[in-house]
């Protein structure tokens, strides 16, 4: 069990007039190898939540366990946690600072105490993993295109060989091609490398095609938790917290509700999230 959140609450600036409850009474578990999407609109507590997974924030109430250890414990080794849980922040290219991409990617592994040689090896592997073009390894990270910068930054985190990778809005600002490439990279890291993925986004579409489980946050509370099909079948509830399901899902829901599919009523836990699934469903109905 990678993470256990046990009745976790977090308050910014507690005891002052500026006190804000960012998380209240959140409980859930994340297993090794999971791929989890966390969605919610701006200010729903997503960012606060993931910062607990890296011990950048500690709960004001409740407990967060990492591999069975309480992260608030005095003896808890934060640097082990941070090297095992990689964090890709929003616009991660803003953290690039070295003269070359290679050196920048080496920064993490070196901080983990690896030798120059080992770090370079790790960096090489990581850059390969994100499909970074070979001939740009020694370029200045500031001369790259936006999409390349983003991949270099993600490689900088991957080079630390994290068991869990947290990505906060990784697709923000990318064009469709960049986005597709990144989403497939995330899937590959989970399926082939076995890395636990925690993917924060406010785009339902991105989440629907990438992860196996979705956690919905609203006003600091855990609003829903389940596989994408289950979660997106609650269109009405999601709309109430101003989240909209992918348009395709919404179309199929309306068709079901109005009796387009014979003998199929709207069922809890059944829905369609991608155009391909929707096409199959409609075609099979019409050919009947």
């Amino acid at each position: 069990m990678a993470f256990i959140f046990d009745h976790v609450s977090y308050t910014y600036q507690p005891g002052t007039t500026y006190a804000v409850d960012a998380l209240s009474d959140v409980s859930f578990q994340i297993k090794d190898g999971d791929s989890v999407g966390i969605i919610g609109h701006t200010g729903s507590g997503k960012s606060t939540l993931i910062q607990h997974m890296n011990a950048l924030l500690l709960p004001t109430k409740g407990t967060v366990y990492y591999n069975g250890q309480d992260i608030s414990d005095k003896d808890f080794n934060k640097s082990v946690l941070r090297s095992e849980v990689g964090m890709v922040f929003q616009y991660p290219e803003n953290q690039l600072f070295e003269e070359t991409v290679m050196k920048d990617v080496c920064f993490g592994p070196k901080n983990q105490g690896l030798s120059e040689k080992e770090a370079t090896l790790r960096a090489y592997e990581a850059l390969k993993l994100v499909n970074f073009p070979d001939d740009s390894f020694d370029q200045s990270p500031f001369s790259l295109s936006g999409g390349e910068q983003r991949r270099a930054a993600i490689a900088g985190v991957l080079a630390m060989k994290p068991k869990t990778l947290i990505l906060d809005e990784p697709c923000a600002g990318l064009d469709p091609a960049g986005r597709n490439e990144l989403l497939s990279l995330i899937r590959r890291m989970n399926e082939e490398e076995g890395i636990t993925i925690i993917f924060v986004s406010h785009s339902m579409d991105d989440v629907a095609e990438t992860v196996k489980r979705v956690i919905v946050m609203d006003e600091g509370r855990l609003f829903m938790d389940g596989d994408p099909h289950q979660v997106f079948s609650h269109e009405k509830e999601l709309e109430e917290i101003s989240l909209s399901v992918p348009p395709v899902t919404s179309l199929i829901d309306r068709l079901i509700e109005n009796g387009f599919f014979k003998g199929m009523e709207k069922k809890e836990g059944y829905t369609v999230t991608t155009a391909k699934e929707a096409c199959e469903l409609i075609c099979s109905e019409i050919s009947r």
Partner: protein
Amino acid sequence: MKELARKRDEDLIIKGRGLTTEYFRRDDEGNVESIDTALDHIDISIIKGRFIGIIGHNGCGKSTLAKNINALITPSEGSLTVCGMDVYDEESRMKIRSMAGMVFQNPDNQIVSSIVEEDCAFGPENLGIPSQEIRERVDRALSSVGMFEKRRNSPEHLSGGQKQRVAVAGVLSMEPECIIFDESTAMLDPEGRQDVLNLAHELNEKKGVTVLWITHYMEELTGADHIFVMDNGRIVMEGAPREIFARDEELVQHGLTLPGITLLSRLLKENGIPLRGVSLSVDELYEELMALW
């Protein structure tokens, strides 16, 4: 194109012929190392009062086009008139900038003042407009973007969508004929994105402001009157949304993706379901499918 031919030049708010922008990359000694052609002999005509979509992947030249229209850069070659003024004419540059205002991508990096109404006044202040009139313009602009209540606030505590509304008000206060939204939704959450898009449509419909909506999200262009697709510094496709969205293979070649609903209607057609054409919205496809049944 036929329609354009009938239109007289006065109806064109933007007219470019052979418009070219080249960026010179120089080495340390100032010798030209390479030339990037950001815009490659573009012909573009935009009719007053329209909602125009300009789409293309990152680096296709769409922002360079916007900067040309706003007279922030001068073309390397070709002609360009905006609101009847020549962009090469030094004297008209300020006038062009006030007539074709621009809303940028990053909401934080375009708000100048730490008070909403003072930011909104920035343009008119630069134009030397008397205080009394600035007051009237600012109040009007803030009301039409729905931010009048927040006029004394600091932009710091506004959401991304609200900041972009303030930026739009800052352009409106210069009383432009045309507003260019240069990827103004790229950094917003879905709510803010919809919010700013709706605002642009509202300004277009109610105030007759010509809108140039630059984006890489196809789904934002379903309500546009006319779409230009750009790639490699050229305009590669042009037409009404329905025509453009129907040419999905070409779009993919240019690094774009179809919105989910359009994609679904394409897949259905491929599978022999008799739909009329591509669908642009959930409502449209829903009605068509229900009618089939």
